[in-house]
């Protein structure tokens, strides 16, 4: 079971590495969305500092949502997905490997870019730490829940917008706890409870989401 998991993971990472330009495009999309906000709201430092966690979180949500189309679509088109479904290993386990690879491609770069962007918004050092930690716990949830929506939207007409409509309502709790962690830290309440709720959401969704996306894949690909 472990070797299959690692094989799928290795394949996904290799495919992602061969299409490096996609990764850079996604990272730059994140940077650009974040840069639009100071242009739209004006360069008032105090206001920007207050809005930074929310802006970075919303930008992360949008970037991950945009990248979800790639998660299953290519494999669906060239028949790999059918082969995965024929495998005697549990499909949810293979899907989990794909989700992990997706997070490494689409989630982790955003987490690594965040400190730099947060500095542009003038966040203090400890708040940046909390923000990065909240993104580190929260972005895997985005990949997990996104996999369910991406699987459901497979083989539908006009999939891209549909994925966003399906997945953004499910992302709301992650957004609230993630952006709320920095706010709670700033107001002196401590970010602990928010981060723990976020970790709870991660634990729950890492159990249920692979199963739900596997079920969705079976529904869609029959």
């Amino acid at each position: 079971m472990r070797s299959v998991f690692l094989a799928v993971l290795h394949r996904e990472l290799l495919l992602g590495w061969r299409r490096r330009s996609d990764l850079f495009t996604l990272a730059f999309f994140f940077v650009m969305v974040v840069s639009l906000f100071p242009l739209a709201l004006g360069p008032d430092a105090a206001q920007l500092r207050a809005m930074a966690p929310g802006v970075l979180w919303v930008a992360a949500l949008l970037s991950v949502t945009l990248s979800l189309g790639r998660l299953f679509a290519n494999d669906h088109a060239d028949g790999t997905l059918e082969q995965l479904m024929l495998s005697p290993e549990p499909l949810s386990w293979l899907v989990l490997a794909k989700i992990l690879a997706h997070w490494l491609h689409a989630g982790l770069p955003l987490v690594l870019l965040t400190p730099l962007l947060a500095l542009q918004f003038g966040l203090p050092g400890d708040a940046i730490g909390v923000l990065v930690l909240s993104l580190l716990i929260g972005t895997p949830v985005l990949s997990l829940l996104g996999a369910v929506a991406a699987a459901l939207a497979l083989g539908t007409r006009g999939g891209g917008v549909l994925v966003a409509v399906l997945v953004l309502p499910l992302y709301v709790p992650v957004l609230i706890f993630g952006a709320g962690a920095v706010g709670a830290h700033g107001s002196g309440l401590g970010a602990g409870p928010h981060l723990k709720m976020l970790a709870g959401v991660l634990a729950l969704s890492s159990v249920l989401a692979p199963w739900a996306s596997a079920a969705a894949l079976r529904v869609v690909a029959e």
Partner: protein
Amino acid sequence: MKFHALLRYATPAHAYTLAGRLLPWLFALGLLLTAAGLYVGFGLAPTDHQQGESYRIIYLHVPAAWLSMVIYLAMALWAVLGWVLNTRLSSMMARALAPTGALFTFLALWTGALWGKPTWGTWWVWDARLTSELILLFLYIGFLALQDAFEDPRQGDRAAAVLALVGVVNVPIIYLSVQWWSTLHQGASISVSSGSSIAAPMLLGLLLCALGLWLHAGAITLLRLRSIIIEREQARQARWLERLRPQRPKGPQGPQEART
């Protein structure tokens, strides 16, 4: 009647007839109870000493909010039944419930805004219960969009069932949000364990309205279910639909037919 005797209504043809028989009763009773509830609520119930007359929106707002959640649960249940047991009618029922649920969610938000302006001084606040009700509306919209996104309606049914199951997590959050977070929206005035904290005529009006709107939602759902049954059965050219066609007079009455 035994349970398996009821199962015959799982066939679209029987369900169509049953829904047709229930419809007038549900509509009539729903109208009667809602009218009675509104009379009690607007005529007999006292004015609230804090909120004045504006509190009377609860006769629509509270039943609509209840229904928005109950219909989501019912819809998810039917959708999952249709997915697991592969019964056609269950999925049709889920599809019939979804627009009604979305409308009641919208109604709850709308009447809440109308009440919020005189009482809280604002149309909208981003508090937990309002936000989670809004997310419920988004979930309904996602469900409806996903159902219609597939060429094959049965595939759309199953995909939407998965989504409904994932979205079910949200319903308890809405219901309990007032207790979990300290927000602007007040807590529940009525509960099963500790009884009601509002005046008796208010409670009576509220319950009558809730029951009336509940029946109305059932009637609208069955009406929509009948259309869906016809639509789906026609697509697979079911024989029993022939019985529904208006009977033409037989025999050599050609000219008469041409005149009408």
